[in-house]
């Protein structure tokens, strides 16, 4: 939303500083995203009077002008090509050295043999419009030599406002001026229309009816839900043409291109009062009738932009006796538009239901300045004033007359809303007591009508503030008009939270920290992707087919991230992620049907060298293998699901973690991927995160007695696992066996074919006494007997 500083000044009757105004608006009602100076580049242009016009000696179309530009050296000669140059008139003059918009720098040069000292400028050359038929004749009393910018009111600032959705009143100059007036203690007064006369508008009153006739035009409001209030005026005998300069410059100052006097007049009212208007040609109106109704299915209209639109019954159409001419509140049709030939005008001033307009705009993918305002809610009560001013303006700039009072159809009239405010509630919510008088003053300053009612204030809400519906809305008004900055930010006592921390957050923090310490970087991937399992949850309106499902697992996303790293030639990649995964729900979830089950998952991927190389080690550092995977899988399982047991996966590839109920809660294996040839093998694991309270660690006395150590190399027949051997060894050796660890494996010569040798380190200890060597030998021998009996495992002959 763009507002012009100069336009605001006209409404306020005082000058505004651009920076201060931007700051005030930002702090009081709407952020100013930018302040753009307009026409400041015309700084070097002067006002000059042409004293004499002579024909150019060498060119028929050029003239040689003697110009008074206020210089001490007296009149100067300027060559001019404009047909409209006349002695005695004043024009903008760009002296030698001046730079015009577009970057043209004027130099003293010969034109057809005659030196020209600068240039008399057209509107287009000054960036003030498209007119290039002649130089710009100035209507000013300023003396020759005066700065053009001082003499002609074109220097301006645009404020680019970020207007919040609840403040449609700020979408026009009057609304913004109202806020400034409140701060400045000024009053907003609509400037008189040059050449205007309010008396040209016959007085009129709303009628609680859905149809009527005005000046021969029949108006039927068949969709009062879509258009609760609908007004039509007929202006006859006007002349479509160019707008006067003051009107055109108002519009260009807010970035609007002037079109013709009628369209410009309606645009002016839109930007001044936030009332969109629609003017159409009476001659092209069949009937002549204006019918407001829901569109019929598949009803078509060619909108102003030349596109054929298909409407639906959810939209309101403005029709003549036969067919739609306007998509209500959004855009008119080329057919009914005002043209050069138009003499009689039908002027619509309507309130359209905001949701209806928003849906229509979205369905047609067509928005306009009008739809933008209608869908935020215009001032239902201010419509007659807007229509009156629009008629006065059109008659002033295009002539014509209104023969009959406009028709104001309002089947169900509404009264202004009254909201009650308790002054003590203001202090309660804002934490600072605000005197009753100040509350009244602040609210009144932006148009609320305040009256005492018992202990309360009865506050009548103006029509332009549809957002104010309850007491707290008024308290916000008090706070912002007083200024948020006027409230202290002092600490006052507070009670501690009754809400405990979510336990899962503590667990996840611990998991993240441990994985990071283990050398993994945390990744955060997006939970949307292709289907990754039969239970994938589908998004009904995905952005793309590749992002159509919610993940059921983290690993596929992490593998894609590894591939991305490979594409950037990163070979050593260790990533983990902790995040939500989704599964199709059973239908009776807490949130009813359609809600997926959510579960927090932990996954990791690893590939590349086991550790960074170091110059002390000549050999290449080996790449990570399944044993690195197992190490990190065990770490992850220990962190994420306490008490889960590890087992070799049923398919013999990798491992599984099994929960207390026998369900598989985690997996680890080598992974398939799209790997470049230089990449190392890729491994990954994923574990469901379950909330188990870790058991409290109790102190175990530190033994004072020495251990007795033994190394035992065993020959394991095919099919016998180390885990099976360890389990029997422990059982047979009994409680004095403190530690039992594999430290070597050997396959090859010197042992029977098909077998392997695995060596264990055992450590025995009795915390109460020093063990005898012989005693330990007996325990080892007992264990070996069991192994031989049960698994055919024997000690390796050395």
């Amino acid at each position: 939303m763009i507002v012009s500083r100069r336009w605001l000044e006209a409404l306020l009757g005082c000058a505004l500083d651009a920076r201060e105004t931007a700051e005030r608006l930002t702090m009081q009602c709407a952020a100013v995203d930018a302040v753009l100076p307009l026409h400041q580049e015309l700084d070097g242009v002067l006002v000059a009077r042409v004293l004499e016009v002579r024909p150019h000696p060498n060119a028929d179309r050029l003239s040689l002008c003697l110009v008074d530009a206020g210089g001490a050296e007296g009149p100067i000669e300027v060559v001019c090509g404009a047909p409209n140059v006349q002695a005695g008139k004043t024009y903008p003059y760009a002296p030698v050295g001046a730079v015009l918009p577009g970057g043209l720098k004027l130099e003293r040069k010969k034109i057809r043999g005659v030196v020209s000292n600068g240039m008399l400028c057209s509107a287009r050359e000054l960036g003030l419009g498209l007119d290039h038929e002649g130089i710009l004749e100035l209507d000013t009393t300023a003396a020759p030599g005066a700065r053009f910018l001082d003499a002609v009111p074109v220097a301006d600032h645009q404020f680019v406002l970020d207007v919040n959705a609840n403040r449609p009143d700020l979408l026009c100059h009057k609304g913004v001026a109202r806020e400034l007036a409140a701060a400045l203690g000024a009053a907003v007064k609509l400037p008189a229309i040059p050449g205007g006369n309010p008396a040209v508008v016959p007085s009129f009153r709303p009628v609680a009816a859905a149809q009527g006739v005005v000046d021969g035009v029949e108006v039927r409001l068949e969709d009062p839900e879509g258009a609760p209030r609908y007004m039509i005026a007929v202006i006859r005998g006007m002349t479509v043409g160019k707008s006067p300069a003051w009107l055109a410059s108002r519009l260009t100052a807010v970035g609007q291109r002037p079109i013709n006097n009628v369209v410009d007049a309606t645009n002016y009212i839109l930007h001044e009062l936030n009332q969109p208007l629609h003017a159409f040609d009476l001659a092209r109106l069949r009937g002549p009738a204006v019918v407001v109704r829901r569109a019929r299915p598949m009803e078509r209209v060619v909108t102003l932009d030349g596109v054929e639109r298909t409407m639906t019954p959810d939209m309101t159409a403005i029709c003549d006796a036969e067919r739609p001419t306007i998509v209500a509140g959004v855009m008119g049709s080329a057919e009914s538009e005002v043209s050069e030939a138009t003499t009689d005008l039908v002027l619509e001033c309507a309130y359209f239901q905001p949701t209806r307009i928003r849906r229509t705009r979205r369905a047609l993918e067509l928005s306009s300045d009008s739809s933008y305002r209608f869908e935020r809610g215009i001032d239902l009560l201010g419509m007659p004033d807007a229509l009156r001013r629009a008629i006065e303006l059109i008659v002033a700039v295009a002539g014509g007359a209104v023969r009959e009072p406009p028709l104001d159809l309002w089947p169900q009239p509404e009264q202004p809303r009254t909201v009650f405010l308790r002054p003590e509630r203001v202090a309660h919510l804002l934490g600072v007591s605000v005197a009753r008088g100040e509350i009244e003053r602040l609210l009144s300053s932006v148009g609320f009508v305040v009256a005492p009612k018992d202990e309360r204030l009865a506050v009548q809400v103006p029509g332009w503030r549809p957002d104010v519906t309850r007491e707290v809305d008024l308290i916000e008004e008090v706070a912002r008009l007083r200024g948020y900055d006027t409230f202290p930010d002092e600490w006052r006592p507070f009670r501690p939270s009754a809400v405990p921390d979510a336990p899962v957050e503590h667990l996840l923090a611990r998991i993240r920290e441990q994985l990071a310490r283990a050398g993994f970087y945390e990744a955060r991937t997006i939970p949307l992707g292709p289907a990754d399992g039969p239970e994938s949850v589908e998004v009904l309106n995905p952005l793309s087919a590749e992002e159509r499902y919610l993940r059921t697992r983290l690993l596929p996303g992490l593998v894609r991230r590894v591939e991305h790293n490979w594409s950037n030639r990163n070979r050593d990649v260790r990533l983990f992620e902790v995040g939500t995964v989704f599964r199709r729900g059973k239908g009776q979830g807490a949130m009813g049907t359609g809600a997926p089950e959510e579960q927090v998952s932990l996954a990791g991927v690893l590939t590349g060298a086991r550790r960074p190389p170091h110059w002390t080690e000549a050999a290449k550092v080996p790449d990570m293998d399944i044993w690195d995977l197992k190490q990190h899988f065990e770490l992850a399982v220990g962190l994420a699901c306490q008490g889960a047991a590890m087992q070799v996966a049923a398919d013999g590839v990798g491992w599984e973690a099994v929960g207390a109920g026998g369900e598989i809660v985690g997996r680890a294996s080598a992974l398939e991927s799209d790997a470049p040839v230089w990449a190392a093998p890729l491994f990954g694991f994923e574990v469901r995160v379950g909330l188990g309270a870790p058991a409290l660690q109790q102190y175990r006395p530190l033994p004072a007695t020495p251990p007795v150590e033994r190394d035992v190399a065993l020959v394991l027949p095919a099919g016998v696992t180390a885990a099976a051997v360890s389990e029997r060894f422990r059982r047979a050796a009994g409680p004095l066996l403190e530690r039992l660890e594999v430290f070597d494996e050997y396959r090859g010569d010197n042992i029977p074919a098909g077998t392997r040798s695995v060596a264990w380190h055992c450590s025995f200890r009795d915390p109460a006494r020093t063990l005898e060597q012989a005693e330990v030998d007996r325990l080892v021998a007992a264990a070996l007997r069991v192994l031989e009996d049960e698994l055919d495992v024997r000690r390796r002959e050395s």
Partner: protein
Amino acid sequence: MRDLLASLDGLRERLREIPQADERRLQELKTEILGRKAGVLTDILKALPGLAPEARKAAGGAANALKREFETAIDARERELAHAARRIPGVDLTMPGRPQWRGGLHLVTQVVDEICEIFRELGFTRVVGPEAETERYNFFALNFPRDHPALDAQDSFYLGDDVLLRTHTSPVQIRTLETYRPPVRVVIPGQVYRRDPFDPSHSPVFEQLEGLAVDEGLSFVDFKATLSAFARKFFSADTQVRFRPSFFPFTEPSAEMDVQCQICMGSGCPTCKQTGWMEILGSGMVHPAVLENCGVDSERYTGFAWGMGPHRIAMSRHGIPDIRLFFESDVRFLEQFAGLVR
């Protein structure tokens, strides 16, 4: 007696030799002077008992003091020589040490933790909630009107008729107020979803961090105090903060909090669009309709709430130009921000 004192003086001169002595010379000196059998000083001390009581006292004090001086000096020199012996000749100590793989937390995790930690000091606990939500929790209980544009499928990912991926963490406010009686002071981090395709400043998924305080007597002053304190702790103690009007369906009054631009420190730069300010969070007093929707007495209880985007905060604080970097997981990016791991 005089001879004795003179020879002690002579002996004292030899203290100077000690700091220069090498290992062998030091042992020689030690034997020569303090040697148990024939040390010069040992001999003097041995001769003391034969002196007259007066002279014994004077000479004895001087001799013992000198002995302590020699012992101290020799001791110091021995330690010095031992330390020097640890120097390995020919080793270039500028060569790199043995490295280990580093890991680290995602920058967004770190920022979230940092923010939550600051609010913990201000009395806030940390809660979370589901990412798939019903329209009631995501919109209606938060006072969004039935026809609010955010409900259109253009803006949100829908999973079912009224189930969608939450568009903000605010539903957890509702879940918290439905479960616990005030005083409530919570921060709510979590992932949220908007139907925006990836571009340098948008992502369909991003992190949000929300806060909520509800109790008797909480006012706009408490709200400003809390969030200003946060800004000063997160940025710097002298950071300027301002609050200006804004609009959210679930707060009234609503406010946007800006902090002094951290790039130009308020003087105006392209990052802050010359305003000198950075928009940090949207906030306000909890709308009474929200409290009523959760069965909380809005006459008795008041509160405030806010929401902010850790991705955006991280981007402005660390100068990260493109939000996609957070999701691409290039290890070179992750490594840059691993240094903050506790």
